[in-house]
């Protein structure tokens, strides 16, 4: 029996470790730069691109494939990431190993990350700048290219800052002014003076907006000024605006340390940047942030709710059939499919509560909803509702575990029941309450289905926290890692390209849950040490 039960545990552990291993391996491999292979094909191979025999790319996968019956058996094929989606119309190519005539790892091949169309793989030819053309053969070509890319990156940030922050603020002010006008109109206080005042303010803002917009347009034009000319492995020469390049490196030239440095910077970009190109490129920072804020908000909502309910159930209510029925109902609530909570959240929080808030406090914005649409607040509350049974159950257990001796000592000292709960019972139950919170967070942070109904979006232009007053925007929609995984895996235009991102995002989601839980567990251990004793 020992062996039997141990075996099942072993199987479970092996499965978990394998799962984590697969996720870690696939998740990290996308960041590690592999070498770029140039392949010369045999005559008439179906893998040829645009009729040429040469193609180059990173080998992503080597797999067995079943081939036609007349040849018999199986053959091996390589999956190459060939990049240059703008030129080829695809990003990946399968090549049969039998079709390969020659493999080389050319030293001069360059891989560059672009703003659009994914990576570029090719040989640099020249750099056409306003100051003249620099040929790839010239000794200062690399230096000039690096400078150009750096300048372009800086300029792109500047454009972003103008368009998002400065123009965003002006838009916000203009919207606020229009709302003021609308509010005055609803209240019947809209005088002609007021109207002209607002019109003047709007005109001033419009003027400032145009200045900024012109500045941004000028910068954009500068971005397009320089041209980077390169030759595809297939032989065609192409050119793109140098400002579209984000970074470049020579994959076959950098050594292990270069690869490692590139790996680290890629991970950093993934964590800190916003997604680009339908989420398949760039980073996932808004999704990390959204998941984090949502989980925190959920915890803030679920703990008081669950603890107070558990105190009533355990300490105040008269134990009887009714309380037993309530307890069973609470436990069963934990088994209700999460999408049901999503529907409830949509109906109750979004339409009913949010709609009421809108008609009471934001009538001037209607029919555009403010709180009457999905948002991070409603998503957090929906998840709080979903996870509250977990907190109730574990809090009740913790309350029940507080020794009778301690309660009696407190009551005998002249404390009231509430004082006893507040000063003796609750502090001793804190570790149990945190256990409930850990379980609630673990469930809540990974939940996707209900969120799709109450506020998660594929791409949120703004974070729930920013520098525009009132700084915390609980009504905003947000991005979530779990939904991001779903979106990448099933909704993305290039599923091959998105696959590694799915793993990387999954790894990140697991990591985030682990970090949140670990901090709660640390807190619990700290408190437990404080209350540790034989008497309790």
């Amino acid at each position: 029996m020992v062996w039997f039960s141990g075996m099942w545990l072993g199987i479970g552990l092996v499965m978990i470790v394998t799962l984590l291993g697969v996720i870690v391996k696939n998740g990290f491999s996308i960041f590690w730069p592999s070498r770029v292979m140039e392949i010369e094909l045999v005559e008439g191979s179906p893998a040829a691109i645009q009729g040429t025999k040469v193609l180059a790319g990173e080998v992503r996968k080597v797999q067995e494939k079943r081939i036609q019956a007349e040849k018999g058996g199986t053959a091996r094929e390589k999956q190459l990431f060939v990049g240059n989606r703008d030129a080829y119309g695809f990003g990946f190519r399968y090549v049969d190993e039998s079709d390969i005539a020659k493999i080389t790892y050319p030293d001069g091949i360059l891989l560059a990350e672009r703003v659009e169309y994914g990576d570029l793989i090719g040989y640099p030819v020249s750099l056409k700048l306003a100051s003249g053309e620099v040929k790839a053969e010239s000794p200062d070509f690399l230096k000039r290219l690096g400078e150009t890319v750096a300048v372009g990156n800086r300029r792109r940030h500047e454009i972003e800052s103008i368009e998002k922050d400065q123009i965003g603020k002006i838009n916000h002010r203009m919207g606020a002014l229009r709302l003021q006008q609308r509010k005055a109109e609803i209240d019947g206080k809209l005088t002609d003076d007021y109207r002209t005042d607002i019109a003047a303010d709007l005109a001033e803002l419009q003027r400032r907006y145009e200045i900024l917009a012109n500045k941004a347009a000028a910068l954009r034009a500068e971005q397009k000024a320089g041209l980077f000319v390169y030759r595809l492995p297939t032989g065609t020469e192409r050119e793109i605006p140098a400002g579209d390049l984000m970074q470049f490196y020579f994959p076959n030239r950098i050594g292990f340390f270069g690869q490692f440095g590139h790996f680290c910077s890629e991970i950093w970009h993934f964590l800190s940047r916003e997604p680009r190109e339908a989420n398949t490129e760039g980073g996932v920072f808004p999704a990390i942030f959204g998941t984090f804020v949502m989980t925190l908000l959920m915890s803030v909502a679920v703990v008081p709710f669950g603890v107070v309910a558990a105190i009533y159930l355990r300490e105040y209510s008269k134990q009887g059939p009714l309380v037993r029925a309530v307890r069973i109902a609470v436990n069963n609530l934990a088994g209700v499919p999460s999408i049901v909570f999503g529907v409830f959240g949509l109906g109750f929080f979004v339409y009913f509560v949010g709609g009421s808030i809108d008609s009471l406090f934001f009538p001037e914005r209607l029919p555009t909803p403010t709180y009457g649409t999905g948002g991070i607040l409603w998503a957090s509350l929906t998840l709080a509702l979903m996870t509250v049974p977990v907190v109730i159950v574990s809090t009740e257990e913790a309350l029940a575990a507080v020794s009778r001796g301690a309660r009696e000592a407190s009551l005998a000292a002249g404390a009231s029941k509430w004082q006893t709960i507040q000063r003796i019972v609750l502090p001793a139950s804190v570790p149990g309450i945190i256990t409930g919170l850990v379980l609630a967070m673990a469930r809540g942070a990974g939940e996707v289905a209900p969120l799709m109904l109450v506020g998660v979006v594929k791409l949120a232009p703004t974070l729930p926290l920013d520098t525009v007053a009132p700084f915390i925007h609980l009504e905003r929609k947000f991005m979530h890692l779990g939904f991001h995984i779903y979106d990448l895996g099933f909704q993305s235009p290039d599923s091959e390209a998105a696959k590694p991102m799915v793993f990387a995002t999954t790894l990140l989601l697991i990591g985030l849950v682990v970090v949140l839980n670990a901090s709660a567990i640390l807190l619990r251990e700290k408190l437990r040490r404080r209350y540790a004793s034989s008497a309790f």
Partner: protein
Amino acid sequence: MEDTHPTQDLDPMTQPSSSVTSAAETSAPAAPVRKKDYIQVRDFSFNYTPAVRVLHNITMDIPENEVTAFIGPSGCGKTTLLRNFNRMNDLIDGISHEGTITVNGQDIFDPNLEVISLRKRIGMVFQKSNPFPKSIYENVVYSLRVAGQSNKEILDEVVERSLKGAALWEEVKDRLNQSALGLSGGQMQRLCIARAIANQPHILLMDEPCSALDPIATAKVEELIMELKRQFTVVIVTHNMQQAARISDRTAYFYLGRLIEMDQTLKIFNNPQKRETEDYISGRLG
């Protein structure tokens, strides 16, 4: 509190000036100077559930500033009676009682009486020491804290006085802010005594306070009880007859929920009037 003299007239069933009503005729000549009867129990019966009666028609008087010991075999109801004095049994569902208990003339089951104010006048020490998971200091001042006292000077004074009263001051005065859970078993029990006397109650109820202690700690606690009776009316439940003989002024013997005999300790141990008492004391029973 001075104006509420404990008049026996409150209860017509009372036989005046008798420390032991069930054995009244035997005890009358032995009490030269009567102290004030602080706790009066009149025809008190107690049920845990309607079918389970654990105390039957108890009538007794507990004089002030004396140590009264309750002895008897396990399950005889002595702890139940003790826990009625500060109404700790209220925590249990389904209890019921008949008869009255008055403390300093006040009926403790009076619906107008606040249980909290009753408990503030009655300190209690439990069988198992139960310090709170707080510092030594906070343990002692707990009853003052819940009563809303936050004046640091008063609290400091109470801590010193109570810990000295519980003979613990010298051992812990340098670590008042450390957790009470780091103390030894005997120290914990003395801390619980300090906590019970911090608010200067009138009565101290002790439910087998030494049953979990070693002989040295027991001796210390016993010494302490002898000291405490100068200020407090002490009621102690004990299984240890030598202890009852050593420290108490008056002893009540319970058997199967009935008060068999109550008298001055010397008399109970040397010359018991009832056959059952003699059997128990001499070890033939229980």
